[in-house]
């Protein structure tokens, strides 16, 4: 067995037993691993009607074939489950070192089923698998829980765990690993909490077997060289982190501001990567086998927000920054630290607070709702306090923890939730960048940027450049990105490796690693298969073409100021072509011919 370990571990929390089984290699070849394979297993084994927070849902931890190898930035794993936020397949992708360790322990997937009658943590050391009492860990934040689990198991254990947010089933609860990395989106932490599983610790002493070591080494060195030679992968991300995007998105007029009321934030520079590097950066940090090091170890000296931790990434700096009308970088970084400790998706948390601010400013929420806190635009203290409340599930924080859609809907104004399929959109305004709007609208897990990052072409000019303000060509662009990313996510490689390499290099490395021949066309076709599998799950769950849309604000209300002033998103000009190019009918349903061509 090459690339894959050939072994899947199944944990029944209800009965407290573990069983090993052979990984379904037919599916592994067709879906690669991680997001693709885990998603297919979920659709095969879980009834789409189950309550996502019930024992009937499953929680799958899955690295990919590259994970644990020296392929560039090959430290990724996915957590796959039915999302409690919106019912989609929640394949939440994380870096760090946990995924590689899981692979070294010998597993392609760990499928967690049922619900433990009491809090437990899972401890795996190679073949040794134990469920241990976690009563003493329940209530600990993600940092303290990680330390405690290491003390109880092995000081070198890699630990994925939930914080208090996952415990109280916050729909923005994420799974933290190595304290600062997150499987962040779509509420996977709440599913872990619903199963009374506090933590998952692993030590592996094995390795990944390579089919053709000579060819693999050559392909990897070529790919590494391309990434290192590229100004972004080689130096830019290491110097400034992802937060370098604040200024270019702002100056393009696509930095969502005050809950997407505007697309330009005049003082955004105070919150950008340049300011972070000057004020807070301790050192850059990479995940397993990373040659990019986009991570930020940061320190805040300001006594009000003092602390040391990691972040913020761009999305986080935007969310707690411009989207809340805040330009205090110390407060933003503090909010990030709190999210990491409580185990919360920073995008969802920040966007929900921005939504709450707008609801408050418009009088739809009052001081009686917000526990007496004046929730005004630009109030950094109020924002940080809301993050704390949200993490604790305290008072108004309980409502925030359910995300902006449910919050806005509860006061009769769902239109003020900046979500797609109930998931908060990230940091790119679709009125200033047309193609990303189409990507948000059609994304299988709702508002998401990483599964169709057209920004690379529309704003950053990486590889090629398309005008962000035009709609022509964006359907094809979006599909190309969505398919490639689906395959890449399934391989265990990091999305950022594509700032330097593409499908050709990925297919070449995967072939040498696994001994299974993948052309770039086949690699991308797998991505298309994964995308359609996720689409079919959504349709089975009641989603329709009516859900392939954006908040009405983005379609009707022009950006008020800045370079994209006057712009709205023209989704209607792109969506029919998108359906057509996808091989879907006019209702967005894959045709029989499409499904057949994908072996679905």
């Amino acid at each position, binding site marked *: 067995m090459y690339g894959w370990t050939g072994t899947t571990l199944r944990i029944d929390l209800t009965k407290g037993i573990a069983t090993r089984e052979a990984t379904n290699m037919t599916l592994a070849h067709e879906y690669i691993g991680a997001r693709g394979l885990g998603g297919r297993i979920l659709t095969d084994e879980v009834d789409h009607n189950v309550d996502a927070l019930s024992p009937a849902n499953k929680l799958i931890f899955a690295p990919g074939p590259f994970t644990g190898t020296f392929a560039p930035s090959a430290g990724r794993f996915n957590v796959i489950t039915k999302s409690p936020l919106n019912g989609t397949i929640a394949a939440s992708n994380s870096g760090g070192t946990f995924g590689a360790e899981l692979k070294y322990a010998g597993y392609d997937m760990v499928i967690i089923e049922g619900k433990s009658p009491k809090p437990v943590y899972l401890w795996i050391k190679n073949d040794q698998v134990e469920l241990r009492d976690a009563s003493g860990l329940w209530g600990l934040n993600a940092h303290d829980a990680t330390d405690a689990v290491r003390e109880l198991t092995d000081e070198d254990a890699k630990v994925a765990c939930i914080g208090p947010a996952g415990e109280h089933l916050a729909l923005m609860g994420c799974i933290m690993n190595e304290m600062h990395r997150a499987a962040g989106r779509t509420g996977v932490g709440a599913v872990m909490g619903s199963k009374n599983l506090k933590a998952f610790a692993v030590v592996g002493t094995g390795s990944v077997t390579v089919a053709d070591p000579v060819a693999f080494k050559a392909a990897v060195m070529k790919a590494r060289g391309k990434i290192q030679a590229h100004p*972004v992968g080689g130096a830019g991300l290491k110097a400034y982190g992802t937060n370098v*995007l604040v200024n270019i998105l702002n*100056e393009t007029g696509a930095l969502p501001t005050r809950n997407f009321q505007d697309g330009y934030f005049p003082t955004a520079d105070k919150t*950008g*990567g340049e300011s972070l590097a000057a004020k807070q950066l301790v050192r850059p940090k990479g995940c397993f086998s990373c040659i990019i090091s986009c991570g930020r170890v940061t320190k805040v000296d300001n006594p009000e927000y003092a602390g040391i931790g990691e972040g913020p990434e761009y999305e986080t700096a935007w969310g707690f920054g411009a989207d809340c009308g805040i330009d205090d970088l110390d407060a933003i970084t503090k909010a990030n630290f709190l999210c990491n400790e409580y185990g919360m998706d920073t995008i969802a948390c920040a966007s929900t607070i921005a939504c709450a601010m707008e609801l408050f400013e418009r009088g739809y929420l009052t001081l009686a709702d917000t526990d007496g806190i004046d929730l005004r635009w630009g109030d950094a203290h109020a924002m940080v306090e809301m993050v704390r409340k949200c993490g604790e599930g305290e008072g108004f924080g309980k409502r925030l923890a359910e995300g902006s859609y449910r919050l806005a809907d509860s006061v009769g104004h769902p239109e003020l939730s900046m979500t797609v399929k109930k998931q908060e959109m990230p940091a790119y305004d679709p009125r200033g960048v047309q193609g990303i709007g189409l990507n948000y609208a059609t994304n299988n897990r709702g508002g998401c940027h990483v599964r169709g990052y057209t920004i690379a072409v529309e704003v950053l000019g990486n590889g090629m450049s398309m005008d*962000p*303000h035009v709609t022509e060509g964006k359907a094809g662009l979006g599909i190309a990105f969505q398919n490639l990313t689906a395959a890449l996510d399934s391989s265990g490689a990091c999305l950022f490796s594509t700032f330097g390499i593409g499908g050709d290099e990925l297919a070449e490395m995967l072939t040498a690693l696994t001994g299974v021949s993948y052309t770039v066309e086949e690699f991308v076709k797998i991505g298309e298969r994964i995308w359609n599998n996720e689409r079919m799950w959504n349709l089975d769950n009641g989603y329709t073409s009516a859900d392939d849309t954006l908040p009405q604000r983005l379609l009707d209300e022009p950006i008020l100021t800045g370079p994209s002033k006057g712009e709205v998103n023209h989704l209607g000009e792109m969506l029919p072509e998108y359906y057509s190019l996808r091989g879907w009918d006019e209702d967005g349903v894959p045709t029989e011919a499409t499904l057949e061509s994908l072996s679905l």
Partner: protein
Amino acid sequence: MAGLPGVTPGSPGPAVCEWSAPLNIKYFATFRDLTGETACVLENPPATVGELLEVLSARYGTPFRRAAFEGEDLSPFLVLLVNGRNVRHTGGRTTPLREQDEVCVFPMVAGG
């Protein structure tokens, strides 16, 4: 920033706009290191983006020129916005500069 550095009396120099308002230029990321500035104001700016980059290269030296140009063309790793529009979609180095334009100079950046 006053005048046009690198342009000596009698030399042809770059064409100069007829309008007299200064041009605001903002630098980001590595261009802040290359220029030692976050922004500058250019009096009597030239008429096109290409000429502007020549002027700025003369002011800031070879590192700036290397970051701005690849041969005669704009560097593929330069992102230059005029009023928020990437000049790759408005004519590249021939993109005209007009009164009250704002120019933003970025290296290629990425994230997500």
